[in-house]
């Protein structure tokens, strides 16, 4: 992990913002000033409560939404910069997405072959009909289905099978980077493992880089090299998977981690949950200063007045909290 600092990042997100106008002159800051980097070949986990902007962040990275401000550099190229249609198409081919709902993410009216070949058709990757079919069958076999499924329709498949079709569709254009937007949260636990193992196998075989969005912490720990924690549109902590679980710094991360059940009844009984007070505030009108202060057990007057900086407090361990801020911030917290 130490050499990661030297490696060239595949994805660089700098001060990314995505705001939605919600009428009445109000703005919903779904993603507000988020910066991080993803390195080639790694799995970057992104966790946070529902509605904290995880999915919006993922969709903004791939330009399904236009960024309000900030930059996304993919392999040195700006995804949101002004580009011709063909340039953008060539760039986005390398970034693909796996969706959350296996029932909504496949078009009911198309058969599996057409679904999987859609990206190949769009980019002209198959020269003729026979090659297209051959590629589709290969992809089906890669994800553990077979040639017989090519002429079927999505409603004939189970959730896990559909999710694998979705993975095959993303693989069809030979991407480098895959954004997995809660790919397992709609599946049964037994099927979740199947899909996660498939994703890991594909990563080994094809050297894929993942952005894995989820709210299931134990699964994220299992699959990710580094994890970013989001709260109300902002990133609050980012560290390697081991660091984050062994020594969470941000109070929000600490609370999240105590919510994971322990698979041992005796330990589980003694587990102390650190319950958060109140509900997630509305991102339309977020609290001043630190966004988390309304629910933070350590919040002081200082948190109300000043938003914490995003600092690398240990090597490769970033956090946005005054408790780990500059000298003056820490002093202000004690006061």
């Amino acid at each position, binding site marked *: 992990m130490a050499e990661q600092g030297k490696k060239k990042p595949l994805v660089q997100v700098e001060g990314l913002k995505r705001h939605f106008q919600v009428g009445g002159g109000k703005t919903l800051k779904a993603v507000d000033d988020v910066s991080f980097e993803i390195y080639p070949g790694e799995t970057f986990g992104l966790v946070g409560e529902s509605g904290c902007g995880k999915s919006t962040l993922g969709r903004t990275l791939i330009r399904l939404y236009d960024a309000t401000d900030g930059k996304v550099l993919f392999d040195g190229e700006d995804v949101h910069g002004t580009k011709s249609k063909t340039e953008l198409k060539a760039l986005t081919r390398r970034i693909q997405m796996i969706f959350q709902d296996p029932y909504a993410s496949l*078009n009911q*009216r198309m058969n599996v072959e057409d679904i999987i070949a859609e*990206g190949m058709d769009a980019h002209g990757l198959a020269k003729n009909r026979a090659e297209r079919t051959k590629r589709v069958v290969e992809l089906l076999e890669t994800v553990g289905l077979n040639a017989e499924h090519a002429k079927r*329709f999505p409603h004939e498949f189970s959730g896990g099978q559909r999710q694998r079709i979705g993975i095959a569709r993303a693989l069809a254009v030979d991407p480098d980077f895959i954004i997995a937007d809660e790919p397992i949260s709609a599946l049964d636990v037994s099927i979740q493992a199947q899909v996660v193992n498939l994703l890991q196998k594909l990563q080994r075989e094809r050297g894929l880089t993942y952005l894995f969005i989820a709210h299931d912490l134990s699964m994220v720990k299992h699959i990710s090299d580094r994890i970013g924690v989001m709260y109300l549109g902002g990133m609050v902590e980012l560290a390697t998977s081991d660091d984050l679980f062994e020594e969470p710094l941000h109070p929000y991360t600490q609370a999240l981690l105590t919510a994971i059940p322990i698979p041992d009844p005796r330990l589980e009984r003694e587990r102390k949950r650190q319950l958060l007070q109140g509900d997630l505030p509305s991102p339309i009108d977020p609290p001043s200063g630190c966004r988390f202060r309304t629910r933070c057990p350590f919040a002081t007057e200082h948190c109300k007045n000043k938003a914490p900086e995003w600092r690398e407090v240990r090597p490769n361990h970033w956090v946005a909290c005054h408790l780990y801020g500059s000298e003056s911030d820490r002093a202000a917290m004690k006061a």
Partner: protein
Amino acid sequence: MANPTDSLDPLFVPVRRENGEQERISRPALSAFQDSWRRLRQNKAAVISLILLGIMIVLAIVGPWLTKYSYAQTNYSAVYQSPSADHWFGTDKFGRDQWARIWQGTRISLLIAVLAAALDLVVGVAYGAISALKGGKVDNVMQRIIEILIGVPSLIIIILLMMIMKANIFTIMVAMSITGWVGMARLVRAQILKLKQQEFVLAARTLGTSNTQIIFKHLIPNTIGMIVINTMFTIPSAIFTEAFLSFIGLGLQSPQASLGVLIHDGFQTLSSHFYLLLFPALVIVVIMVAFNILGDGLRDALDPRMRK
């Protein structure tokens, strides 16, 4: 360690799992159209409706030629004749052959049906789709126009038009064209707005599919079921509107024949010559009920999720 199967009764043989066996789907593979057609055929009422409509259409085309009388030809020596070998459905107060008149009237009704369907499919679908896809200000203006059209009762528009223009089939068509497509436009707009945000459309965009391709491969195929069904329900109401206008005297005028005109004439002699009302009423009832039942059947057949 011994193989655990050795000690078991030889009658019990472990089932060998073929590779990929658990992923097998036993249902035969069918195309979307085959599948819908198969399910429509299973619906007896819908099949009967389809057959009845077929008969009605054939009779409307060839019916008037099967008898030697023309629908407008009067014969004062043969008024109010009962159904006979000569005049199959009898004659009216001017001795006109009722059989020829009924099928002539059915032609008008079916013409109205075709017009209503065409309006729905062309104007309604295009208007709704453009409104939903453009969004923003365009959508806003287009929706306000629709609201104005809906706000004014269509019957008033039709009656006013009838007073200005000649009472003929063309006027009825113009009157219906003003508001006939509004319902379809709203439905299509709502459906496309919903589909636009679905994950499979987002997936298509990340895969690099162009907007035109998204419209033709994703949006339209997913709206087509709803479009067909809505058309099937608009047709009977259009037929009824025409019949109603003719019945209250605002539609076609004699000697032209439409089912509404025939019912109006038959109604006046109901007590003495009931068959003058019975036959045209039967025809219009059959057409309307058949369209409705067929529409219902199509709704079930076209939705792949409705399968039992």
